[in-house]
């Protein structure tokens, strides 16, 4: 029962308890012997009923009764009256058992089983449910059973919706009723039942209802969950769309010519040291079916084989928001002076489908140019092994107007314009706008602040092309919430981080202000790599990856990150600094496995290894433990068992520079392990590896 304090057990005298237990034991052993000997006599069946009324949790007894019923039914198949009496007896036993324990899974299941035999008047079942729900209106067993009965008797969703309304009217703190409402409405909207054809009207009605509940009692959480569901229904785009891509439309990419490819010497704004040129597609939701037939790539040179698109997702499912492939640039054929036009056509043929089954319906095309470029040869070979230092004085900010035209062009075109989306979102925007105005009246309470923050964030998510509005207000709201409600600090902090990143990535200007030239004594200015520095922002979660696909060098140091989930979208990433964060294990860095270009990694000054039990694996969607099975354990490193997480994440990476100092895990043996694991490593914790 909900909201009712448990009464202390009445003191009972031990002798009585012992006697009861003895009686139960005797019953139980007698029952088990009946069961084993397949005795289904009247007396034996009655014995099981007696037992179940005392202890409804005895699954064996329910199963025994099922066998008995089957046997008895087989004997009297022709006589409907005796069939009825057999099944009625079962319903009676279940009802008595439920009186003993309303939450007995076995009892509810048995009742379903009897009903599935086509027995009992359904009205009687609903009556019984009403009786049980009067005792405990939220009990989810009863609600589950209600859904089962309603489906069996083909009760209309409209009637059931009415029932949830009545239950909510009686007591608005009824999670189960609100939940059932969301299920029923989803069904009705899917079926486009009369009165439920327009999503916009249905949602508006529901917002009005839940609003009454929320304003009546802002402390009651059941309504807030429903509101969250409504908001999700409003904002979630039904249609899969391409949000962004690498390279961006109309970009001009310079590649070092074949001779220099391995040299990594060309330091233009974008430089690739590999012959595999990555293509990345970033969708607004998880999709499947991205392959060489649904995405066609044409370029001036011949592709040797069909491109293989891979979902960038750490679980093994074949769907992901981000898909990547690599163009293998052939050595021959290409002439350094030529520009090659590459066209990527997405969704011109059927096959890309969202996880909810909606087909990708807005074909889009991305074209860009590839240049092969002969770059001047760098003076010394040192730069090749030059150690990247993530020190402030190694970074020079872009002077206004000094940015390279290709960078400006890139930052102007980070997201793909989908006209379909912007027109469809008008009613959503209206709803959210209305809701925001109404909930501003509740800004003096915690949940009011949170809702306004959520609504404003949702508003921005509807218009991904426009500059986000109200960011400052949302950030302030989350800051207030962190102070007001310290027990949920992390939740507010994470949301704060996401909005902050949205703000930072929202415009060319703000991104440029965080773009730096990296240069140190060993590198000349014109060859200096471009680094996006998102350090010292206090962020605890990463987001806005769709705007960061171009990033090759990323500084995330001095934040409060615990995970880098999502970072796998940044396929160009070759230098990454994660020092001074709050990573507790290598599991939290699992995304690194997908960053094949990564050469330089700094994870120093974290908390890796300080927690003997890695709880983070339970927090993330794709716990490492799931993928362990596929791990190749044949390589028998000395310490791979001790450092299996590090082994799993770092193996096969072509790191040349790694910083791990300042973590609990670091030790001499760990360093030895790393050196063995990473044969390409040149620098470990600032020390040159032999």
């Amino acid at each position, binding site marked *: 029962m909900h909201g009712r304090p448990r009464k202390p057990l009445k003191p009972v005298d031990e002798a009585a308890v012992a006697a009861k237990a003895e009686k139960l034991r005797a019953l139980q052993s007698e029952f088990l012997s009946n069961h084993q000997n397949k005795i289904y006599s009247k007396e034996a069946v009655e014995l099981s009923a007696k037992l179940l009324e005392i202890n409804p949790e005895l699954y064996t007894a329910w199963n025994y009764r099922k066998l008995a019923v089957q046997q008895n039914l087989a004997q009297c198949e022709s006589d409907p009256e005796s069939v009825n009496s057999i099944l009625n007896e079962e319903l009676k036993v279940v009802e008595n058992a439920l009186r003993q324990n309303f939450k007995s899974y076995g009892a509810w299941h048995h009742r379903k089983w009897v009903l599935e035999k086509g027995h009992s008047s359904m009205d009687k079942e609903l009556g019984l449910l009403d009786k049980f729900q009067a005792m405990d209106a939220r009990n989810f067993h009863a609600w589950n059973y209600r859904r089962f009965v309603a489906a069996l008797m083909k009760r209309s969703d409209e009637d059931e919706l009415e029932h949830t309304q009545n239950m909510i009217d009686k007591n608005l703190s009824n999670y189960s009723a609100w939940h059932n409402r969301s299920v029923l409405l989803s069904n009705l909207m899917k079926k486009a039942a009369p009165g439920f054809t327009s999503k916009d009207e249905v949602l508006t009605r529901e917002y009005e209802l839940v609003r009454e509940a929320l*304003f009546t009692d802002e402390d009651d959480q059941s309504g807030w969950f429903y509101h969250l569901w409504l908001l999700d229904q409003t904002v979630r785009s039904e249609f899969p769309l391409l949000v962004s891509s690498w390279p961006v439309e109309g970009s001009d990419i310079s590649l070092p010519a074949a001779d220099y490819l391995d040299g990594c010497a060309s330091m233009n704004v974008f430089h690739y040291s590999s012959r595999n040129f990555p293509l990345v597609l970033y969708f607004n939701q998880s999709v499947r079916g991205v392959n060489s037939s649904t995405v066609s790539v044409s370029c001036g040179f011949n592709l040797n084989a069909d491109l293989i698109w891979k979902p960038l997702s750490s679980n093994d499912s074949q769907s992901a928001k981000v898909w990547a492939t690599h163009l293998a640039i052939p050595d021959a054929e290409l002439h350094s002076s030529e520009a090659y036009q590459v066209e990527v056509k997405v969704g011109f043929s059927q096959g890309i489908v969202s996880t909810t089954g909606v087909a990708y319906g807005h074909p889009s095309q991305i074209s860009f140019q590839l240049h092969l470029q002969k770059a001047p040869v760098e003076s010394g070979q040192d730069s090749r092994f030059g150690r990247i230092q993530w020190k402030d004085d190694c970074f020079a900010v872009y002077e206004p107007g000094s940015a390279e035209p290709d960078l400006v062009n890139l930052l102007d075109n980070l997201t793909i314009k989908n006209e379909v989306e912007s027109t469809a979102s008008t009613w959503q925007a209206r709803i959210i706008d209305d809701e925001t105005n109404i909930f501003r009246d509740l800004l003096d309470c915690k949940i009011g602040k949170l809702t306004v923050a959520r609504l404003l964030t949702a508003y921005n998510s509807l218009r991904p092309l426009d500059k986000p509005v109200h960011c400052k207000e949302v950030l302030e709201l989350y800051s207030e919430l962190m102070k007001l409600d310290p027990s949920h600090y992390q939740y507010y902090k994470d949301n704060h981080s996401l909005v902050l990143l949205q703000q930072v990535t929202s415009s060319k200007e703000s991104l440029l202000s965080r773009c730096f030239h990296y240069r140190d004594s060993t590198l000349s200015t014109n060859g200096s790599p471009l680094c996006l520095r998102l350090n010292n922002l206090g962020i605890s979660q990463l987001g806005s990856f769709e705007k960061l696909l171009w990033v090759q060098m990323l500084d995330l140091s001095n934040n409060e990150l615990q995970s880098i989930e999502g970072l796998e979208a940044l396929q160009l990433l070759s230098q990454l600094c994660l020092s001074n964060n709050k990573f507790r294990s290598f599991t939290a860095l699992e995304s690194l496995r997908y960053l094949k270009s990564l050469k330089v990694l700094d994870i120093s000054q974290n908390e890796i290894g300080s927690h003997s039990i890695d709880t983070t694996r339970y927090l993330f969607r794709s716990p490492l433990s799931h993928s362990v099975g596929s791990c190749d354990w044949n390589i028998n490193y000395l310490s791979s068992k001790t450092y299996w997480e590090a082994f799993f994440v770092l193996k096969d990476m072509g790191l040349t520079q790694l910083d791990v100092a300042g973590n609990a895990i670091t030790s001499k043996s760990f360093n030895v392990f790393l050196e063995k694991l990473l044969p390409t490593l040149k620098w470990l914790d600032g020390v040159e590896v032999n």
Partner: protein
Amino acid sequence: MSELPQYPPIDPTTFDLIVIGTGLPESVIAAAASTSGKTVLHLDPHPFYGSHFASLSIPEFNSFLNSNSAPPASQSCPETACPSDDPNLSIINLNCRSLYSDLEISSFSPTLLEECSRKFLLDLAGPRVLFCADKAIDLMLKSEASQYVEFKSIDASFIGDGDGALLAVPDSRAAIFKDKSLSLIQKNQLMRFLKLVEGHLRATAASVGTDVNQSEKGEERETASRISVEDLESPFVDFLTKMKLPAKIKSIVLYAIAMADRDQENKEISKQVLKTKDGVDRLALYQSSIGRFANASGPFIYPIYGQGELPQAFCRRAAVKGCIYVSSVEINPNLEFQSSGNYKGVKLASGQELFSNKLLLDPAFTKSSPTSSPDDSLCARFDFLTAQNVKSKVVKGICITKSSLKPDVPNLLVLYPPQSLYPEQSTTVRVLQIGGNSAICPMGMFVIYLSASCEDVAEGKKLLNRAMSALLSFPDCSESSSIASEENVSHPVGAEEGKPTLLWSALYAQELQTTGQSDCITSSPTPDGDLDYNSVFHATLELFQTMYPDTDLFPATNPSDEHSGENAES
């Protein structure tokens, strides 16, 4: 007046307590005294139980009010008191004063009512309901009088306006949620206020209930949610203003939940300004009443067969405990005194002398004019029995209709807060409709009780008339629509604008008087102007304590509370 006793003489003749009148206070005290082992004689001049709390059929009602209405004069005993048999005793005559005045009865459908006039049980002291968490209920459970009464839940309560619109009182979370007239922010404000009060009450209860040492840590937290002492002593209306509640919410809280009688905003006019602590207590009573009994839908219940059942239940309880009952006894009691001036007993009209240590009198009894008494000094001691120049009155109305004020809601309460009917309205008008399912009238008919406190009867009647015309249509009051009204007479159900048509009405004024007491003689209070029984019971319990300071009131025998809730029938 016949000298012959109409009844066989009462035997025995000496009691611990003689009670005259079977009103609720008298009946409770009779039951309490008998339960504590006192010998009690309970007399009533009327042929029915309940005196001023009785429920009567239409003819009984007419004759009771007619014979008990002002102008007074009728009942005084013209002849000088017959001397006592014992020359040592002196006599004071009592008059039966009228508590009622300004009676107006109008019948618009005599034939219809003629047939079933005896099927009505009209409450003299209506409109009145019980809060489920009322002290009265507790006392009934404790005294076991509850086993003689069954209750019906009042289905809904409303706030009315001058146009006849009825808005449900948003008195609980579910009601606030469903309410259609409050704005979102008003819902929020009202609910927050109710939670604030709830928090205060919880904190108060916790600090009372727990050991001081034990709860030191908790205390600090609890005091935060408590309402400050200054606020508790301030007028409730000021506290509501301080809490920034809008006028509409204030009005709901003050008049429909805290049930304030007088206009709280106008403190110069109003003598009864509710303090915050009292307001909070009333809110607590209201809230704890909701859901106390599973089959009562709201906070209020009403006794099936009418209010008269309550005193009767206590009388039955008293009888079980040995109290002797004599009703329809012609009393015209003369008090008898010893020469020392101490009360000795009562002499009935029959001439029989009955002696007791204490006497409890119906509030209608007054000492006759001082001159008629032989002993002035003696009289002076019983001045409290002289009819006080009572200023405070309550005007009551009873209406009978054939349709409900709200379809499908037979039992309902309507409150007209001050100024809701017209700007000069300074007291709340309370309206209670009881339907045939409470067995007080034929099925399909409804009795509507109204009341308003007032200083001046004309003003009070104006108030009730205004409320009645907001709620009901009068069959023959408007000359302009004579055709319509004729139709209404012939088809009284189909009323104008769907308002129920008035079939019968009575308006009367009742004096309000509190208890009076001297040594051994106590005068019980008249029915008050409240909607509930709280004050009546409170005053009664105090009376009992002063009469018998060392006696427990209905000492617990075997606690059998729990079954009693089931008496409330839904």
